Structure formats: C-alpha cells, structure tokens
C-alpha cells in the first residue's frame, strides 16, 4: 500500500485525475505512434491504388476515391454518410447483432455456468456442444434457410449460433478456473449450494465470461456478415455483396470499413461493461502494475 499520509504529494482525484491521466497519456509516445501508424497504412494503400497504380490494385478504389464518395452529399456510387440507405444497412445489422448477441449471451452464460458447476449437466451437454461447435457457420446456412422462415430468422440464427458456442465454452472454463479453496471456504461458512452458485461460481467465472463475450461479439459480427451475404435483404454484409454484384466497389469498401469501426466499438462496449462489473478484478490487476 502507498501511504502518503505524511507527505505533501496528494494523489489526484476526480477531474484532476482525468487531467493527470490525459497529460500522462500524451506525454508518452503511444498516441503519436498510433496516429503515425494509421497514416502509414493509409499512405501505403494510397500508393498502391492511386499513387503508383500497381497491377490489380487499380481495380480497388483508393482512399481518395472512397473519402470523396463517403463524405459527399451526392455520392457517385450511391452510399455516403448523407444517404439514408447507408444508415438503414447499419441499423439492420446492429439490430441483428443485438438480438443475436443477446440470445447467445442469455442462453450461453447460464448454460456454461451450470455445465461448469454440475458434473451431470456437463456430461449431458458437453459432448453435443463439442460435436456441433466445429461445424463451420456457412455449413449451417442451408439448414437454417430450410428451418426458419423469412430473411431475418436464418441470419439471426447463424449469428447467434457462432457466438453461443464461444460464450458457453468460456463460461464453463471460467467455472473450472475458480480455485477449489473458494468453494471450500464457502462450504465452511455455511453456504447452501445456491449460495455457492451466486457468490462463488458467478463472480469467479466473470473474468472468463467477459473474455468470452469479447470474442463472441466479434464472432457474431463475422457470422452475421457471412449470413447476410448469403441470405439477406439489407445489412452491411448484404451491401458488400450487392455492391460487388453491381460492380460498384466504393460502397463495398465503405461497408467493410464501417464494419471495422462498429466491431471495434461493440467490443469496447463489452469491455467497458466487464470492467464496470468487475471492479475487484480491475483493481487487482492495477495493483500488479497492469
């Protein structure tokens, strides 16, 4: 513990702490390296496509062509931040992800926890999950179209499936990772089986669950896009395929970059929620200097 009782230096708090952190962040090389890195990549992209116009890369829209269309009120190839269509695609994809991720989490976390907690539940379910898990999501496409009506059902089903397996497995491993001594301590203290579940199993597995959820939301995105490409009427995945079919490459790349940003943002949301729920874990890591 740092004791500063006798010293004049006081640890900053509140807004001062924020200022201190911001100042510290910008006094190191990290933010500048990030910015430099982004520009380096963009520059390489520009050189390949528009600067030197190297073989094959001429077929791709370069950064200048993309930004011209993306930020234009009258986009040449139909999609920009000023067209309603762009937001329709984003909205539909996000809505599907929210539903799929919600279902996968709502089913996967409890199932994984119960599988970790009870030997017999694991014996019933684990072999089936292990059998289904390696089947690629695209292999499920025909079955889901046969099984579920409309466009929405199969797409959401496919996105749910992929992230469900990840979430379930991580929740189960999370329970496995809990030190036996916490169960013993809980037993000594007079816990019922349900008390143990609430007070040891759930919080103990939480770090693993959130690692799993971060992976699972990523998996949900790429299986969603795969599903939208095969069967869909809207959505960013559909936009990519549709643009490709119609030989307009700019919207294709715009949709890809948009996916990148939204995916990044959704992972960050999951991470932030995890850190909020696991203050103890964050503080523990901080004490270890991480």
């Amino acid at each position, binding site marked *: *513990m740092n004791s500063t009782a006798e010293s004049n230096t006081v640890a900053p708090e509140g807004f001062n702490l924020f200022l201190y952190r911001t100042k510290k962040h910008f006094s190191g090389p990290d933010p500048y390296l990030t910015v430099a890195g982004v520009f380096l990549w963009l520059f390489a992209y520009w050189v390949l496509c528009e600067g030197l116009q190297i073989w094959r890369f001429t077929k791709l829209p370069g950064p200048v062509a993309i930004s011209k269309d993306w930020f234009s009120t009258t986009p040449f190839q139909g999609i920009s931040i000023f067209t309603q269509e762009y937001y329709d695609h984003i909205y539909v994809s996000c809505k599907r992800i929210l539903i799929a991720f919600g279902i996968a989490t709502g089913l996967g976390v409890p199932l994984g926890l119960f599988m970790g907690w009870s030997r017999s539940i694991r014996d019933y379910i684990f072999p089936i999950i292990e059998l289904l898990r390696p089947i690629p999501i695209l292999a499920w496409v025909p079955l889901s179209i046969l099984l579920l009506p409309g466009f929405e059902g199969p797409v959401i089903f496919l996105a749910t499936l992929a992230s469900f397996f990840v979430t379930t497995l991580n929740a189960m491993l999370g329970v496995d990772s809990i030190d036996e001594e916490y169960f013993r*301590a809980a*037993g*000594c*203290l*007079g816990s019922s089986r349900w008390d143990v579940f609430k*007070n040891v199993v759930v919080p103990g597995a939480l770090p693993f669950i959130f690692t799993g959820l971060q992976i699972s939301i990523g998996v949900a995105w790429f299986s969603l896009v795969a599903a939208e490409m095969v069967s869909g009427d809207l959505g960013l995945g559909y936009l990519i395929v549709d643009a490709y079919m119609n030989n307009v490459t700019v919207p294709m790349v715009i949709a890809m970059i948009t996916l990148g940003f939204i995916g990044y943002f959704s992972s960050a949301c999951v991470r932030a929620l995890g850190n909020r729920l696991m203050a103890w*874990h964050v503080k523990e890591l901080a004490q270890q200097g991480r």
Partner: protein
Amino acid sequence: MAKNTSKVGKKGALSIKNVTKIYDPSGVNVMAVDDCSMEIAGGEVCMIVGPSGCGKTTLLNGIAGFHSITEGTIHLDGELLCGPGKPKADQSAERMVVFQHGALFPWKTLQENVAYGPTVQKVLSPAQATEKAGQMLAEAGLGNFLKKYPGEVSSGMARRAEIVRALINNPKVLLLDEPYRAMDALTKQIMHESLLETYDRTGVTIFFITHDLEEAIFLGDKVHIVTTRPCQLKKTVEVKIPRPRSYETQSSEKFRKLLEEVNDAVHEEAVKAFKAGEREMA
C-alpha cells in the same frame, strides 16, 4: 478426555483416534496419514509441526470435511464428525478454516467477506451482518479498509480479515493451514501478536499447521510433531510459558530449550522426508 485441567469444559475439544487416510490417485496407493491419534482440549492452541508433504493438511481436510478419511474417528466435543459409516465430515461453521494461500473472495470487499458467513447461515440479517463485520474488522485494526477488495490490501491485512471472517461465526475450532507461510519475518511478528491477542479474547480452540518451529512454540500450548509420510504423531511438547506472551518470550532460556527439543525431533523427520524425496526422483 482433556489433559490440561484448567481448560476442561471449554468447547471445541477435538479427539482424533487412529485416523488413516489412503489416497488412490490413478491406482497408486498413497498413505498420507497412518493410525494417527491426538487429543486436543477445548480452548487449546495446538500446533502441528512436520516436514513438507507429510499429511498434515490431509488431517486438517479430514476435520474440516473437505476429504473423507479411510479409517478411524474424529470427534468434536464428543460428537462424531467422521468415522466408520460416515467417512466424510459435514462442512460446518463450527470448524472454520483459514487457508494457506488465503481464500477471501476476491470479488467481495473485506466487509462483504466477513458479513458473508452470518448472512448465508441466516444468523443475522444482511444489514446486521454488515454492521457487525464492520465492527469486528475495526477491532482488528482494519477499520479503514472495509470497502477495499482483498487484492488491494497487503497479504497481512488480508489474512487478518480472513481470521475475522472465521471468528464472526463463533466457531468452536479454528483450523489454520500455514497461514503465515509466505510472509516476511516482520509481518509475521505482527500477525502472531494479533492472533495471540485474538486467542486471549476468544479462547477458541486452534489447530495450527506450520513449518516454523519458533512460531509453533511462541503460539502453542502444545506442539505435536508428526512424522514424515505417512503422518503419525511422533512427539508432543508442552509449552508451559504463561500467557499473555510477548515478543520478549522468544529470547528467554526456556524458549530456547523448547526450540532445541522440537528441532531435534523434527530434524530427524525432515532428513527422512528429504531422503524419501530423493528416492522418488531417482
């Protein structure tokens, strides 16, 4: 039953008779405890000393109800905990364990940890338990750390909080498994003083496993030296140093003589254990 007459009638008398424990991991029989008997009077501080891996923890696990025992009986205040027909004792708050590596729930604050026992046993309402936990932690000098998580405080503080978490349940026996093992000598001193102070206040029976001979004599009423695996009682050394004890006790002539006596007995076993270890590896 109890030999120490001054403590007859106090709760928490443990009677361990002919306990044997055989592990059978992957078909290899390992006899961890063999025909081990010892009597621990109510309110006694009983120190168990023996070489590493000798089966001391196995004995503790038997008492706490974490493991079954193969043969023999263990009684607490005349009541059968485990024995023939009931190989595994029920886990209960009357026998509280303080673990080697510490087992405060890292996801609960110190106060929540301490309040946990009475809350789940429904002895106190959550509000009452929280209040009492706050009081008891303050008594143990942790008043400023109620809202801290175990990962945020020093290991000494965490261990002290863990003992408070045990004591809030008014246990008959406190089972400690090398709780101060990983601590530096100075922190250990403070922990010893605090445990002695706690003992003088509560008079709870203490079953304390350690490697540290000075710790054993300084804290204990009796020091039970056990053999290397399988664990058997080799020798009991009575520590007739009056309480309350202070740190000066450790430099007295009497203390040194006891230390020599215990050391002689343990050293032999440690050598045996070491040799056995060499054979296993060769």
